[in-house]
């Protein structure tokens, strides 16, 4: 019984002392902040040789009875001419008549190979009714030390797959 009690008390004391050790009274020990992804002050440069956009995107009904649709955009293929540092590529699709804009950011680095598959996260759409076909504007935007610029864009047909 005594051994049991002192073990329990021991665990309690370890916890208490640890909490105090990391506290403001003890200098030198503190929790470190997690590494934050530094969106916004990206360094580096990217030059794009060419972009191949998909011919069309689709709108599909959600499964399992979810009351909405998904816009599925196939990946664009990007040929990179030169790459240094950690620039960003944004893949965007605007469907003006539906009032939606999809965008997915890709963080490039030394390991990025060319041609690069620029994927798009599926987006959710909640509409009572849809047309057969829409016209979308796909674009690839580069964000690097020389700022933000559209490197390629193309009109894409968005078809409702009923």
């Amino acid at each position, binding site marked *: 019984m005594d051994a049991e009690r002192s073990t329990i008390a021991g665990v309690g004391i370890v916890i208490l002392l640890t909490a*105090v050790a990391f506290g403001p009274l003890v200098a030198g020990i503190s929790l470190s902040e997690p590494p934050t992804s530094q969106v916004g002050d990206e360094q580096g440069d990217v030059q794009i040789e060419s972009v191949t956009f998909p011919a069309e995107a689709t709108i599909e009904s959600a499964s399992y009875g979810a009351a909405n649709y998904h816009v599925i955009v196939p990946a664009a293929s990007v040929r990179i001419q030169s790459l240094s540092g950690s620039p960003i590529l944004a893949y965007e699709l605007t469907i003006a008549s539906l009032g939606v804009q999809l965008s997915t950011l890709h963080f490039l680095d030394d390991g990025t190979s060319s041609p690069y598959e620029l994927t798009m996260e599926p987006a959710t759409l909640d509409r009572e009714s849809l047309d057969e076909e829409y016209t979308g504007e796909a674009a690839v935007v580069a964000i690097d030390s020389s700022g933000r610029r559209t490197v390629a864009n193309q009109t894409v047909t968005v078809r409702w797959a009923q």
Partner: protein
Amino acid sequence: MTQLRIFTRSQEQDDSEGWITATRWLFGDQIGLLVFLASICAFGLIWRTDIFITDTYALANALYNFSNGQLFLVDAAYGPQVETIGVRQAPGGHIARNYGAIILSLPIWVLLEGLILVTDLRITLIGGYSLALLAFGVQLGRLRASDRIVFAACLGTLLFFIVNVGLATPLDATQTHLYALQLLHICVAAFAPVMLYRLLTRLGSPPEAIAGAGLLVFGTPLAIWAAVPKRHVLIGTAVLVIAYTLYRSRADHQGTPGGVTNSEVSPVGFRALAYATVGLYAWINAPEALVLLVIVLFVDVPTASNNHPRALAFIGSVFVLSLLPFFITNHVLVGSPMTPPQLPSGGGGTAADTAGGSTGQQLVQVVPPLVWRVVRPFRILVHELIAGGSVLLRDPEGMYAVLIRSGDTTAALGILGLESTNLSVLESAPPLAGLVGWIGIIWRQRDALSLPERPVSGGTLVSLFAVSAIVVFTLFYANRLQGHAQLTVRYLFVIYPLGTYLLCRLPVVQRTLAEHWRVLAWSAAVTVLIGGQVLAVGIFWTTDSLGEAIQLHGVLSVGTAVPLALWALIGRSDGWFGRLGGILLGSTTALAWLFGLFVAIEYYPRGNSQLLPIVRVVADVLTLV
């Protein structure tokens, strides 16, 4: 075989007398304390130290302004501005709601502020969680008289603590108001399973009662809402306290099946406690407290064996006394003791307006003002119930979406109308499908049905209360259920604890819990550990959005709820039927718990704000939608 002893009580009683008394009053017995600790550990696992729903801004800002010595909402430390959902303009300034919860959180805030003078906040909260885990292990070891469990608990806790400290990141120490509110709600929520355990252990065997408490913690959305500073878990605990006190007010003078008697509080005293719970709940949410009051009056007064004027006067004065915090808060903030900070939203607003309008003006001249003031809330209530009843008749499809299956309907609007992220009651708590078994029982006894004989037994009275509360709250909220961000039909939260009670009272479930609780526990564990991984893969491969992923949970819940309902309808618990029942109850419970885990880890991680670093790391690794 029905009276399985799962715990051998340790003979050593070296604890102090005061501790034993406190345990008995709060938790009933040592197992009740174990249930409490287990609940705290379960809720802490999915606690996210962030604002889950925008309604919380009002409460956190109110506590922040209190801590600055401000009565009204002057500065907004949380959210975009002072005027957020739930904030109202009173003559003296902006006020929030749920003042009972805000004021009761003040001592916890003081404690947290005191602690961070000497300790690190994250390590303190991890430490607190570890101590709860340790207490659970030690309590379990002592109840089973096993030194090995106690030592294993010590070692396990130490490892758990060290791993979490190793992975810990700092916690924003300026948000202690939010954490204080969350801690209060977690503690109150943990009393819901304790009260259910106490009630069921008096109506049956300990295994039944423990399994019933487990069904409530893991088989309903209780855990999802435990750390969310809203009224839902508070009313969940309140209705179970009322159920327990009502039971005790009848059981003691009829001899309890459990054989435990506690003569310190008289039957009338327990009745008074039930009303006092309603009175205290008015401090949180007055309209719901009014609904509760009507239900308690309706089931208690006609069935009581002692309605002597002296008894009624005693109960009445205790009730008025319990309303004092509510009156004082209203008087200070609104300037009128009878005007609560929050009136029913939606339809209730219009009802309140008409009540104060021209008809109201005329009536005020006839009826003395005080009587009018007492009658007015009841008028609003009747208006709400009639409106709810008409919705049930007008839109049965909508109610089907709310109660049974949410998907496959365009009416399943979600948060901000973007995703269908609302599950139905059955999808949120699939074990409740077993309630269908009651239909079978009533059908089989249709010729022998009669009004219960007086004096009504405690068990019958509680069942009467549970059924009335479920029906009346459904009517009360019927016209507000579809437009709001609910996730798990949180407006009808009373269904989860009271439904679990009614489920555990179903004879076939009672027998299954008593005889096959091991099967239930194993089936739940296997479903969580293996089924959870399969589910994660399924979500990753087959869903593209949050709405779809949540609906997959809905489909699975309904899919397992249907066989459970059929099993309950057949009503057999012998041989393989009993084991099948245990498996079905276990797997449905596990599905509800998995949804809670996925909400905390995947669907609404709130910027990876999980309290426990180990949970945060799992959430980081796992990206499904």
